[in-house]
């Protein structure tokens, strides 16, 4: 077994552990921290079902962003939808035999990869070209885009420039799942691609990528408009009822 294989195997076990434990810790804190008050941004749905629809429109179509700024919306959709397709395309590396619907989507994953990189470059360009966005962009915002572009570009490079032995890549990842190490091809684009992905997984719970779980816990969107009908009371505030006169 080569040192390279061992390094990457350890890296991916480590990255996966950080990602899962880190995000789970964050999600737990979001889920358990109480909301003292009803603060849905109105007009808001008056039922739980309504809120599910609101959240679906928000997460699937970026409804608020659409209202806000068409350029950001187009680029964000390109990036996120592209990323989704590309991710689906990657399921084949972890499942054997590959599911039929994944095989069907396979060719579109490439377009997904292109859309993703195009969207990212557009979003990055905004950080230089739009004065307001330039003002609010910090080093970490640029680095995050660089990392994602690197992932997308090296992924596409393995399709169009320097192909890698993807059968062996699959053997490596299936091996990881079974705790049975198999050799990883020593191709530069692949190693950069996988290194960047592992970095992203490690950075995820400590960065703005927390918007992914965060959006599901945003009280301004997830709360039901029923303040007059149902008394909302945070546990930490409940004792104050006893202090009041009358």
């Amino acid at each position, binding site marked *: 077994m080569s040192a390279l294989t061992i390094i990457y195997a350890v890296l991916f076990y480590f990255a996966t552990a950080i990602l899962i434990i880190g995000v789970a810790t*964050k999600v737990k*804190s*979001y889920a358990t*921290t*109480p*909301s*003292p*008050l*009803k*603060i849905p*941004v*109105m*007009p*808001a749905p*008056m039922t739980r079902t*309504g809120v599910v629809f609101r959240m679906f429109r*928000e997460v699937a179509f*970026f409804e*608020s*962003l659409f*209202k*806000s*700024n068409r350029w*950001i919306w187009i680029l*964000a959709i390109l990036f996120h939808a592209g990323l989704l397709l590309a991710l689906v395309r990657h399921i084949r590396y972890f499942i054997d035999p590959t599911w039929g619907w994944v095989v069907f989507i396979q060719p579109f994953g490439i377009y997904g990869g292109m859309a993703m990189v195009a969207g990212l470059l557009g979003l990055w360009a*905004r950080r230089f070209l*739009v*004065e*307001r*966005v330039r*003002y*609010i*962009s*910090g*080093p*970490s*915002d640029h*680095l995050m885009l660089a990392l994602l572009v690197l992932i997308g570009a090296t992924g596409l490079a393995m399709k169009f420039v320097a192909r890698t032995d993807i059968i062996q890549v699959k053997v490596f990842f299936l091996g990881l799942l079974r705790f049975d190490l198999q050799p990883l091809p020593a191709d530069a684009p692949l190693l950069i691609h996988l290194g960047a992905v592992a970095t992203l997984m490690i950075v995820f719970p*400590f*960065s*703005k990528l*927390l*918007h992914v779980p*965060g*959006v599901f*816990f*945003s*009280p*301004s*969107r997830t709360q039901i408009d029923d*303040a*007059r009908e149902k*008394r*909302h*009371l945070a546990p*930490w*505030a409940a004792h*104050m009822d006893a202090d*009041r006169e*009358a």
Partner: protein
Amino acid sequence: MADQKFETPKFRELRENPQIQEGAMAHSQPFIAKAEHNEPLGFPGELVENWEEKAVEKLGELLEKNKALRVYLDSCVKCGACTDKCHYFLGTGDPKNMPVARQDLLRSVYRRHFTTAGKLFPKLVGAKEMDKEMLDDWYKYFHQCSQCRRCAVFCPYGIDTAEISMAARDIMDHIGVGTKYSNEILAKVHVIGNNLGLPGPALVNTMEGLEEDVEEETGIPVKYPVDVEGADVLLITPSADFFAEPHVDGLIGYGKVFHQAGINWTVSSYASEAANFAMFIGSYEQMHKVSNRIRKAALDLGVKRIIFGECGHAWRVAYSFLNTFAGPWDFLDPKYPTPQHILEVTHELIQNGGIKLDASANDDKVLTFHDSCNVARATRMGNMEGGQFIIPREVIKASVNKFVDMDPQTTCEKTFCCGGGGGLLTDDLMELRVKGALPRMEALNDVIKNHGVTHMAAICAICKSQFTKVMPYYGFDMDMVVSVHQLVSEAIQMGAKETV
């Protein structure tokens, strides 16, 4: 104020975004509260020792108590969607008035002290210490947010800068740095019962004066009762309604509506204030205290219903928070929601024929309507989504024949703040107030020019006071601002009802 020199912004031809001007509003800050304003609220009188630590400690406490704060501080991706949505940015060009930049003032301290990335790589992720420079920026720029929530409509994660401003102001109060405007007023509420410090006897006097005026005008003895035990309805209205113009014309209207509908009502001298300034300073404890004056008044007077007058932030605290602070309302009549808005009452009476309006009484006017930010984005009226947009318009249209809406990018959920909300309605912030009114003034100018609009109705005491003050800066007459119930008051048919 005479010593404030500034230029009223020009209307932008194509509503283009302003160029960034760093530090354009760095000189703007409200008068700081003195010990005598802070101490009655339980806040330290002046900046405490080791305030840096205390501030971080308070932030930590709020993070444990408030999910929104935690999620909002983590989730921002700096996409820029909010950057051109704040009226204070549009009016001043100061980049720290972009919602994300305002949030970052608190987020940077959060990152430094509560995140791994900020502890390890502060420069990389924009993490900063809580130091004097930071506190100065907090004091200036968290008092250039009117908590209007417009940015939250457009944020893909619903990040509400109002929540962050409230948290920052709460933290500042806890280290002894509050604003004179809000804290002085809150102390008055605790001692006297209303923001204006209008004592019970003066209130009775004022209301008797209104009775005389209305009887003189209409020949009908409409009552404006104070502290009447056993009344059915307790009216909670902003104290500005008791004498400021055009507010008081709205109060006259409520009285006429109640009279014609045969509703037996009273105001309370103990809880003679709808506005809850504790929301502005983000203090749960203070909001709780002020809200429970209303509960006590309702119990003491033995009323069956609570109805709120026209007031924006008050309606937010009433509609969204009052049940939390002062509920449950099991001692009130369950047939009615608690609390109700006066417009819900009037609207229903119009629909079921309980009152009759003759819109031709307002034929000298062409109306438009300013959606108050907190009513629009933090409350509802009626029993349908968006009722807070529909009901006021229906009441206006029943009272006036000529009505025109402003640019849809500036109404309903996208409405702009008047420029004076969120505890900023003070003369020491006049420049900010004038500049922040720019987007609303532009939209108003459009309908004046293109549709001959003569009046703008509002349903918030702050909007009414703010507009009457700043509109002259833009060359508009301050009398253009009217209460919705002032229109109702003109149009309502008084006297015996026709029997069928």
